[in-house]
């Protein structure tokens, strides 16, 4: 019997108290759909031990751990396996990991009630349930050994894949116990380890997914190869919401290797023997588009609308003290901060391989939402959900783009037209121009200073409500809990504080989660505003922050340490500045100092970055470091270059020449210090992303006095002596 009863439901509540920033999420219970593909059922004849949805041990001791979260570079396969292996006392050398099949009943992320990987929730969400799952399995193995030896289970211990009875100097491997353990009843209440006894958690273990990534062996979705498979390249209508008009395929069908042209409502696909043939075919295709009503939209107009919307009163997301009274006196500061549309641009371009058979639909892809993909594919293919097989692959980057099922749905519609498997590949141009974009946001801060400290802070966020579309039940009282997340959880103590949200949806432009999610806009705005307020108060930025962190010891501690490690306050040459950013996001505390030089023509040279992170218990400290390092680069890339603009209803960027990425020759030394902590683990996949932009902006502010309030950074404003 396959069971998930060892996964206590309380885990959700625990999560909240564990500091999940968006506490609202717990307020609803999402009905879980019946499991579509039951994962392999327990089969007592194969000698395997399968105590729950996550652990499989065969008679050789091979330990396969089922991964409920997907691996997209964040190292979660290793970290999750470490949590399970720790409590299981598994032999790490025998641990293997496997993608879990789509099944919300067994593998739903407790935060979302859905098998989704995002929002830096993996470790936070699974920390308790997986420890319990591991501990329960260990207890069953111990029980089995004790029964065999006819000793008290309490007299046995477990270590490195063996149960040990010290008194009689007997040991037995998990493999040998597998069959017997399967017959054991899981214990009712099983204790998890005291963190001081951890032998795996907290170690910088080598990742399990990387050895195959150095030799080309790893198979991403785009690498799927199936018998008789053909390859499709697509053109989506360049205008948002536009449709296919006329298609003249005379030229395309003459291209050698082109097999078929598939015309969907808003997409045209050319299927060929190989990508090149399909691409050439697509070039030879004459497509007339019905551009529809959105052919006039532009980012210029969208900004105008957003600015107007942000002048309205918003829904109040948080209120402390008396904001009106607080704002009525003191030294007043007002500023608005604006963030552009952004594309995800994961290195693996969007793709999905689909084979629609008379009785089933099989999918090969890398997605962050396995069950949603399965359900949407079922609808598109017209088959029952349980006839949709999703073969999950490692992701060549996700960053939130693969929290959407659109690419799979389109691929199913294309594959439906043929009887062979089709791999649908989006060119980089399609990937950039038909993304689901990080929304434009406008954050307004109105604050007053009294005696050099913030007395009141009114914070209004205007922008798209991604939550309302992606997780509708979570959108309540007109508030996007994600868009205001880090604003409501600002680290600073202000006597009068109010957060408001104005929902402002750009016309026709699809918006979605982008690595860093809501705190993206919040952290940038409040940390920029803090620097300007510090200057207004005549205080050093670090000093000014400290004065507001008296009630937040974890944030204060990381700030103090980063100031020390970064050489804060030490003299710098002209046009070199340090900028600081403090943030509690995703239940982690991160303080970052960026040191940058702004040369005479306004070019920015990053000199040094120092980050201190308190993420509670760092399951794998090296992964934590890597995520902060990479997150910083991701965020700084956006700060320096990231902007999607729209004209005539079309995205104007298309590839890396005009949607620019930071490169190695722009990357400074990055020092990341992981603070030892006994708190429950926080999220780390996104914190670094949000730290980069404000810290760099504040460094520029320190170096040049230019207070940038918009991203990406306009380097024209930074040239010495040149009029902007």
């Amino acid at each position, binding site marked *: 019997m396959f069971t998930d009863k060892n996964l206590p439901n309380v885990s959700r509540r625990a999560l909240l108290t564990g500091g999940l920033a968006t506490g609202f999420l717990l307020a609803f219970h999402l009905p879980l759909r019946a499991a579509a593909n039951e994962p392999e059922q327990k089969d007592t004849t194969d000698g395997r031990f399968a105590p729950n949805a996550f652990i499989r041990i065969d008679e050789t001791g091979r330990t396969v751990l089922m991964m409920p979260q997907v691996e997209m*570079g964040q190292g979660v396969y290793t970290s999750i396996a470490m949590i399970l292996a720790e409590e299981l006392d598994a032999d790490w050398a025998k641990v293997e990991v496997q993608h879990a099949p789509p099944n919300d009943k067994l593998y739903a992320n407790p935060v979302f009630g859905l098998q989704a990987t995002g929002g830096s929730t993996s470790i936070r969400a699974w920390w308790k349930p997986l420890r319990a799952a591991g501990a329960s399995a260990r207890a069953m193995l111990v029980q089995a050994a004790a029964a065999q030896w006819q000793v008290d289970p309490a007299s046995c211990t477990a270590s490195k894949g063996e149960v040990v009875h010290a008194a009689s100097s007997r040991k037995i491997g998990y493999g040998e116990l597998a069959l017997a353990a399967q017959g054991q009843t899981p214990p009712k209440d099983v204790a998890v380890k005291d963190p001081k006894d951890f032998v795996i958690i907290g170690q910088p273990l080598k990742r399990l997914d990387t050895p195959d990534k150095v030799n080309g062996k790893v198979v991403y979705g785009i690498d799927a190869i199936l018998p008789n498979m053909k390859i499709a390249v697509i053109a989506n209508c360049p205008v948002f919401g536009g449709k296919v008009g006329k298609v003249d395929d005379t030229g395309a069908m003459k291209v050698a290797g082109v097999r078929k042209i598939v015309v969907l409502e808003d997409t045209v696909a050319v299927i060929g023997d190989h990508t090149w043939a399909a691409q050439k075919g697509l070039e030879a295709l004459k497509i007339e588009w019905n551009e529809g009503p959105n052919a006039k939209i532009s980012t210029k107009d969208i900004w105008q609308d957003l600015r107007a919307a942000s002048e309205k009163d918003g829904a109040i997301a948080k209120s402390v003290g008396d904001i009106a009274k607080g704002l009525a006196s003191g030294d007043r500061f007002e500023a608005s901060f604006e963030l552009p549309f952004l594309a995800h641009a*994961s290195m693996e371009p969007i793709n999905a391989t689909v084979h629609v058979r008379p009785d089933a639909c099989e999918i090969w892809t890398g997605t962050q939402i396995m069950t949603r993909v399965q359900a949407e594919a079922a609808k598109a293919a017209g088959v029952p959900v349980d006839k949709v097989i999703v073969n999950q692959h490692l992701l060549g980057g996700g960053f939130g783009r693969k929290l959407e099922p659109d690419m799979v749905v389109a691929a199913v519609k294309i594959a439906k037209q043929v009887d062979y498997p089709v791999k649908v590949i989006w060119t980089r141009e399609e990937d950039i121009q038909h993304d689901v974009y990080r929304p434009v946001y406008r954050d307004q801060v109105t604050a007053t200073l009294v005696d050099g400290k913030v007395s009141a802070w009114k914070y209004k966020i205007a922008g798209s409500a991604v939550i309302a579309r992606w997780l509708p039940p979570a959108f309540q009282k007109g508030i996007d809990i994600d868009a205001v997340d880090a604003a409501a959880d600002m680290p600073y103590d202000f006597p009068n504080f109010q957060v408001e949200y104005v929902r402002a949806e750009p016309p026709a432009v699809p918006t979605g989660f982008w690595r860093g999610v809501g705190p993206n806009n919040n952290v940038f705005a409040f940390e920029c505003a803090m620097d300007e307020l510090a200057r207004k108060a005549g205080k050093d930025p670090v000093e000014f922050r400290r004065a507001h962190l008296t009630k937040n010891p974890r944030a204060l501690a990381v700030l103090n340490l980063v100031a020390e490690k970064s050489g804060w306050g030490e003299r710098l040459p002209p046009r070199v500045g340090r900028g600081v950013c403090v943030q509690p996001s995703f239940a982690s505390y991160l303080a970052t100092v960026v040191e940058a030089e702004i040369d005479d023509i306004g070019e920015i040279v990053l000199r040094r970055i120092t980050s201190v992170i308190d993420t509670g218990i760092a399951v794998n400290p090296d992964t934590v470091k890597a995520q902060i390092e990479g997150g910083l680069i991701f965020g700084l*890339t956006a700060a320096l270059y990231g902007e999607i603009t729209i004209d005539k209803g079309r995205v104007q960027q298309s590839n890396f020449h005009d949607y620019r990425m930071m490169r190695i020759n722009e990357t400074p030394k990055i020092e990341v210090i992981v603070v030892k902590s006994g708190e429950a683990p926080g999220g780390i996949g996104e914190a670094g992303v949000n730290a980069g932009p404000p810290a760099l902006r504040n460094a520029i502010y320190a170096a040049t006095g230019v207070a940038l309030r918009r991203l990406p950074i306009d380097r024209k404003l930074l040239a010495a002596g040149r009029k902007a």
Partner: protein
Amino acid sequence: MATVLTINGETKSFDAPPEMPLLWVLRDILGMTGTKFGCGIAQCGACTVHVDGKAVRSCVLPVSAVANRAVTTIEHVGGTPSGAKVQKAWLDAEVIQCGYCQSGQIMSAAALLVSTPNPDDADIDAAMAGNICRCGTYVRIREAIKQAANGRQS
């Protein structure tokens, strides 16, 4: 008309139009998917292979241009001394995150070590700036290249 190429020391014969980029020949005709498609315009480096030992972007390299030249891909670079050193250093320094760009990064780094056995930061910048990593592993790439050059272990 069959095209004949020497890839990883083996002779491969196949049908492909002469202008077809080597990338698609490798991936779609020969089934060697270690070499990645990233941009198609030589701006990201994910498709880097070695042609006569030099790093070349296969997404813009017509297959006709490599007839009679030795092509090495990520699947075989571990068989070369510099490639093996780079792969080991990559794992020792735990460079990789999503890994999608890393075939190209490793190919570029291995070619760098052949031409410049002891690269300094400027050499690394010159050889590696054409390879984009969206996960931002650049700090570790730099470190790993230095480790590979020194034969130092972490």
